[in-house]
């Protein structure tokens, strides 16, 4: 039996970002798939329909929300609490990555307790959400802006067209990277449900409530120093502290 306490991990802006992001990606993926593969064809006069046009419109508007959301999150890396940060330039980040990798490869039995993200998860976010996401934004904006070659958008994003060797390649990259999202989703869902089941730390519900449950004797990951906010939140959380029996399976 281990004592657990509640720790406030995900601040409201983080949770908001997460759900806006998830929502946007879902819409973008669905409309994007239709744009790439218009499966249904409508009949009658063209003047009576605007199916592709609507999909395209929704895709672009959602893309703009998605981009704004990403920019906001970028700001929150700076403004948010310790769990909102991604310090991949630190040595400890990479040490933790390898430790976590070993754990997931069943090479070590012990899971290092993490309150925020483990470094492996952070690395996946860095690749799939940030690097691939930026490429999605740049390639998408370039394709959008091509219809106004003298406009501001084209001036901002048009450079990617010659860099990738023509707009057709821009399109190919946009398609290829889009598949990164469902790929990421599988890993993301699997890892967090597994984490929740094995460690009973409330990982799944934390993205709604903001709280995770952490063993009192080892509540911080090596690279995270607890901020005062966390500690006070932790004290607050003692109210609802749940003692859980990990052997209750």
């Amino acid at each position, binding site marked *: 039996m*281990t004592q657990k306490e509640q720790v406030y991990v995900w601040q409201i802006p983080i949770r908001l970002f997460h759900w806006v992001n998830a929502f946007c990606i879902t819409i973008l993926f669905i409309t994007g798939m239709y744009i*790439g*593969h*218009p499966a*249904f*064809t*409508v*009949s009658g006069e*063209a*003047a*009576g*329909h*605007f*199916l*592709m*046009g609507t999909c*395209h419109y929704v895709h672009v508007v959602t893309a703009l929300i998605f981009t704004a959301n990403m920019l906001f999150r970028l700001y929150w890396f700076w403004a948010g609490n310790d769990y909102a940060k991604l310090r991949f330039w630190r040595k400890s980040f990479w040490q933790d990555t390898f430790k976590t990798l070993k754990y*997931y490869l*069943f090479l070590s039995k012990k*899971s290092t307790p993490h309150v925020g993200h483990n470094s492996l998860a952070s690395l996946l976010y860095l690749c799939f959400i940030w690097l691939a996401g930026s490429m999605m934004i740049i390639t998408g904006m370039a*394709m959008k802006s*091509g*219809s106004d*070659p*003298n406009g501001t958008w084209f001036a901002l994003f*048009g*450079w990617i*067209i*010659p860099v990738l*060797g*023509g*707009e*057709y390649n*821009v*399109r*190919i990259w946009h*398609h*290829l990277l*889009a*598949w990164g999202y*469902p*790929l990421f989703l*599988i*890993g993301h869902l*699997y890892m967090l449900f*597994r984490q929740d089941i*094995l*460690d009973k730390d409330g990982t799944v519900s934390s993205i709604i409530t903001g709280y995770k449950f952490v*063993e009192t004797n080892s509540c911080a990951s090596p690279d995270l120093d607890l901020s005062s906010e966390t500690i006070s939140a932790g004290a607050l959380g003692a109210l609802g502290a749940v003692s859980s029996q*990990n*052997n209750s*399976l």
Partner: protein
Amino acid sequence: MSLEEKESYYQWALKKGISRRNFLKFCTAMGAMLGLEASALPKIVNAMETKPRIPVIYLNLQECTCCSESFIRSGHPLVADLILNMISLDYMEVLQAAAGDQAEAAKQKTMKDFFGKYLLVVEGSVATGDGGVYCTIGGKTTQSVLEEAAEGALAVVAYGSCAVNACVQGSAPNPTNAVPVKEIITNKPVINVPGCPPIAEVITGTIVYYLTFGTLPELTNQGRPKAFYQHRIHDNCNRRAFFDAGQFVESFDDEGAKQGWCLYKMGCKGPTTYNACAITQWNDGLSYPIKSGHPCLGCSEDHFFDKGPFYTHLADVPNHVIGKNPDQIGLIGLGVAGAAAGAHALATAAGKAGKTSTHNSPKDKSGN
């Protein structure tokens, strides 16, 4: 004869019996084609009346001559006539009467007399493989022919996709190691006029612009004259309404094809192709591929020949090496990831079960 002694376009036109009215019409058409304001018209007229005709050397390197065919078939009869006569085409193997040594002498003379003042138009790519043996003219490799002629040129126009991106002969595996003009000529302005073949009016437009303003026309970020290459075919396509409506041809003989629906699903590359086909069109505005029912192949885009298959919308990446298009790759990736997650879950469960059976104490089951 120096350049100054050459007659102007207008003098030439008068000699040909072209009326002043038709001459002005031509100037207006050119101004419109280049997207210039009406106020530029007097400047164009003035330039055409006073400036001497630019000498042009036209090289045919590793190519199929479809660009030359396009070049001599400009739509508007006056324009067609002018293209051939407004420039003083001093060397062009396909059209000139002279052959052999005589032709070579004419080229040498132009290069000497008008050093730094002639325009070099290049059709075809440069074969650099195995010392350039795959294409030689008069015993010289294409590279030396090009370098020699480019030496005294005021600018080089890479005319056609061969000269811009090595086109078909440069597609994988590129056996002759064909390279575009811009990789050989790096110390001169190179104007890219891609297309297989490109539209003839671009050459005339470029020359008129140069005469009028003394500079080369504005280029896009891919080095192409902006007046012709800034818009996508898709954005000016006459089938665009069907695209937006969601009405697509599914096969070349279906009802949609008869109705003239959008060719997107037949592999149309119009959405990613920057060219003027949909605006100027071909054969005096008669038609262009999409209008006549065939999807755009994207012939003015770099390495279009590698981006097949032509009749599916997404190309295989990269260059058929994998033989799958991005969506197929994505689905395979998804399958693999799903299977991996499943296997990992099983392994985790097995690990837990194993632990339970070996150490039968409740404390050890925690996994913590």
